[in-house]
């Protein structure tokens, strides 16, 4: 089963809006999304920082939330995006 990570912030409105879309994606496609909150969980924050060399260049040079990341392929997409775009990205 395909799996990817979602780095998100508890008080990030973009992340909050993406949550129902992530649930829908999981139900519709069977992908598994591991949700990792980064502002209230230092372990998750450090994990995101570790991936900065891969994530940063595709997200304006910064660590932004939400960021969707496939650790095996290194595929990254960040920000509040439409469901179809997310689904297309998740299918890659």
């Amino acid at each position, binding site marked *: 089963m395909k799996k990817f990570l979602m780095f998100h912030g508890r008080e990030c*409105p*973009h992340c909050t809006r993406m949550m129902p879309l992530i649930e829908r994606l999981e139900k519709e496609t069977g992908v598994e999304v591991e949700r990792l909150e980064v*502002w*209230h969980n230092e372990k998750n*924050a450090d994990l*995101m920082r570790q991936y900065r060399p891969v994530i940063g260049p595709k997200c304006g040079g910064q660590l932004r*939330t939400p960021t969707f990341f496939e650790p095996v392929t290194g595929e990254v997409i960040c920000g509040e995006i439409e469901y179809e775009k997310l689904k297309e990205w998740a299918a890659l």
Partner: protein
Amino acid sequence: MKTYWRCFVCNDIHYGFRPPEICPTCKVKNAYVEVTSEEYRKVGSLTTVEFAKADFRTAIEAFAAPNEFEVNPDRAKVEMLLEGIFNNERNHGLKYCPCRLTSKNFEEDLKLVCPCNFLVHETYQGREDGECWCGLFVRRKP
């Protein structure tokens, strides 16, 4: 390197490469002298400034007023962001943007303190519907 400057007339403090020609507080010309970090800290401690969320909102509204952007009219969104900004100050030391993450490089992370320099970000620059990354500030509609 940026350093600290103190107005010898009114003790106004400036941080930068060079001092203002005219003190914005007492209006005296060529009044700044370079000072140490210790002196800056002592002068700065004369006044205790604490911001509640409502005060910060007032401050950013005043900041936006003369500019081409405004605080997002979506009050629920702003409320969530302010909650995050204040949680970050309490837990991580400064009012970091809740929609980005610090790198643990203090100088670099200063760029994430709200309000940040979002005018140069791709989410704002050249866009009619421009907004800062988190959406706290949006371009004012004509």
